[in-house]
C-alpha cells in the first residue's frame, strides 16, 4: 500500500521540478494567459468528479458528485475558452493590418 504513496510522491516531485523549469521561461507578457491556461488545466478535476458521481452509491454522494461535475465543467470550459480569447489578441507587428482593414483600405 505504501508503495503506491511513494509512486505518487515521485510523480508529484518530478512534475514540480519540470513545471517550475518550463514556467520560469514564460515571458511576463504572457503571465495572464499563463494563469488562465493553468486555470483550465486544473479543470482536470472534472475527471475526478466524473469518477465520484459514477461511483456514487447514496443520494448524498450523488448530489455532491453532481455539483462537482457542474463546477469542474465550468472550470474546464471557461478556462480554455477565456485563454483562447486572450491569446487570440496577442499579435506581432504587421498582423494588426488585417484586423482593421475598413479604415485604411479603400478599393
Amino acid at each position, binding site marked *: 500500500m505504501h508503495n*503506491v504513496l511513494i509512486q*505518487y510522491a515521485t510523480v*508529484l516531485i518530478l*512534475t514540480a521540478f519540470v*513545471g*517550475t523549469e*518550463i514556467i520560469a*521561461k*514564460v*515571458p*511576463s*507578457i*504572457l503571465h*495572464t*494567459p*499563463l*494563469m488562465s*491556461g*493553468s*486555470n*483550465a*488545466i*486544473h*479543470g*482536470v*478535476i*472534472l*475527471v*475526478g468528479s466524473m*469518477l465520484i*458521481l*459514477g*461511483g456514487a452509491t447514496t443520494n448524498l*454522494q450523488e448530489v*455532491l*458528485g*453532481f455539483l*462537482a*461535475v457542474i*463546477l*469542474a*465543467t*465550468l*472550470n*474546464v*470550459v*471557461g*478556462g*480554455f475558452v*477565456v485563454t483562447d*480569447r486572450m*491569446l*487570440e*489578441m*496577442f*499579435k*506581432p*507587428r*504587421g498582423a494588426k493590418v488585417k*484586423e482593421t482593414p475598413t479604415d485604411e483600405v479603400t478599393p
Partner: protein
Amino acid sequence: MSRETLIDLLYLFSATTFIVALKGLGSPKHARRGNMVAAFGMLVAIVATFFKYVDGHALHHVWLIVLAMFIGVIIAVPTARFVKMTAMPQLVAIFNGVGGGAASLVSITEFIHIKSSHPATYVILEVLLGVLIGTVSFAGSAIAFLKLQELMTGRPVTYPGQQLINGIVGLAALSLIVTILVTASTPLLWILLALAFVLGVIFVLPIGGADVPVLISLLNAFTGLAVAASGFTLGSNLLIVAGTLVGASGILLTRLMSKAMGRSLSNVLFSAFGSVVTASGATTRDDGRSVRSGTPEDAAILLGFSSRVVIIPGYGLAVAQGQHVLRELADLLESKGIEVFYAIHPVAGRMPGHMNVLLAEANVPYEQLLELDESNSELATADVALVVGANDTVNPAAVDDPSSPIYGMPIIHADLAENVIFLKRSMRPGFAGIENDLLYNPKTTLVFGDAKDTLTKMVAAVKAS
C-alpha cells in the same frame, strides 16, 4: 491490452499535452496552439473516463454526468465568450474558484465513499488537505470576485483583532484536522468544511487593490494543490501531474509578483496594505510645492516635438477604458516617425500581466511592450515619458525614501526621460496612499482629467498639428 491500461495511456497522453501547452506559452507565437493542444488532451481524458470502471463496475449515472456537464457548458461558454475584456481578472478568479470547489467536493465524497473500509491515516490526510485547500480557494476566489466586480469595496477590509481572529480560526482548523485524523469522523469533516470556508473569506478580506495580483496567483496555486491532493486520494497520476503543474505555476507567479512589489509574501497577505490611505499621506506633505499643469494640447505639442516616447500604463487606463485611444495616439505618433514603446510594470493592474492583455486587446503589437529592465534603459534616452493611469509604479519614493511603505519596490524610472507627461484624474495619491514626488518634478507636466477624454483630445491636437 486491457481496458484499464489503455485508459491510463490516454491519461498519460493528456498529461503530456498539458506540459506541451505550458511550454507553448514560452512565446506568443505558439501559445494559442499550445492551449488548443491542452484542450484536446483534456477532451481525450474526459472521453476516456466514460469507459473507466469504478469499484469493478462501469460508471453509474452516465446521464446524470452528461446532464451536469451540459449545465456547466451552457453557463461557461457564453460567460467566457462574451464577458467584456475588462472583466478578465474577476472571470479568471471565478473559474479558479469553481475548480477549488470541485476539488473539495471530490475529496469529501471520496471520504464518505471509502470510510466504511477504514482508510489509512495518510489517505484521510490527503482528503483533509483537499477539502481545506480547495474550500479556502473557493471562498477566497469568491471574495476576490466580489471585490473585482465592485460588488463590495476593493479596499482592504479591516476590523479590530483581525489578526487574532484569523489566527484562532486557523488554529481551530488545524486542531480539527488532527482530531479527524484520529477519529475519522464524518460530522467533524462537515465542520472543517464550514471552517475552511470562513477561513477563505477572512483571509482575503484584508487584501485589496494593488495587492490583488499576488492574491490571484496564490489562489491559483491553492486550487492546483487541492487538485493534486484529490489525485492522491483517487489514485490518479493525471490529477497529480495537472494539479502540481498549476501549483508550481501559481507559486512561481506569486513569488514574482511579491518580488515586483519589493515586499515579502507575508507582508502582502497580512499587512492590510493601503487601508489607512487618507490618514497619512496628503496632510503632512502640504509644504507649498507647486505642480505644473497643462492642457491636452500642450501635451500633444510636447509629444509632436519628440523622437522617442515611452508610455507607462497603469490600472487607471483599464478603468478609463482608454487603451484603444492610447493605441490610436501611439499609431499617430509613429506615422510621424516617432518611436513609441510601452513600459510595463509587472504588478500594474489587478492580475499578473494585466497591462499586456489590455494593450493586446487594443491590437498593440507585443514587440512594443517592454519589461521593467528594458523600460528603464529605453527611458534613459527617451524624450517623453507618458504616464497614463499609473502612480505607485513610477513613484521615486520607492528608491529614495526609506521611510516610505513602498520603499524597495522596483519602479519604472519615468524621471529618466527628458520630460514627463502625467495624466491624472486628481491630486489624490494612488492606492498605497503615498504622495508622489514625480508630480512635483520640474520635468513633469500634469494633465488633469479622465484618461480617455484627455487622450482623445491629445489625438485631435496631434492630428491638427
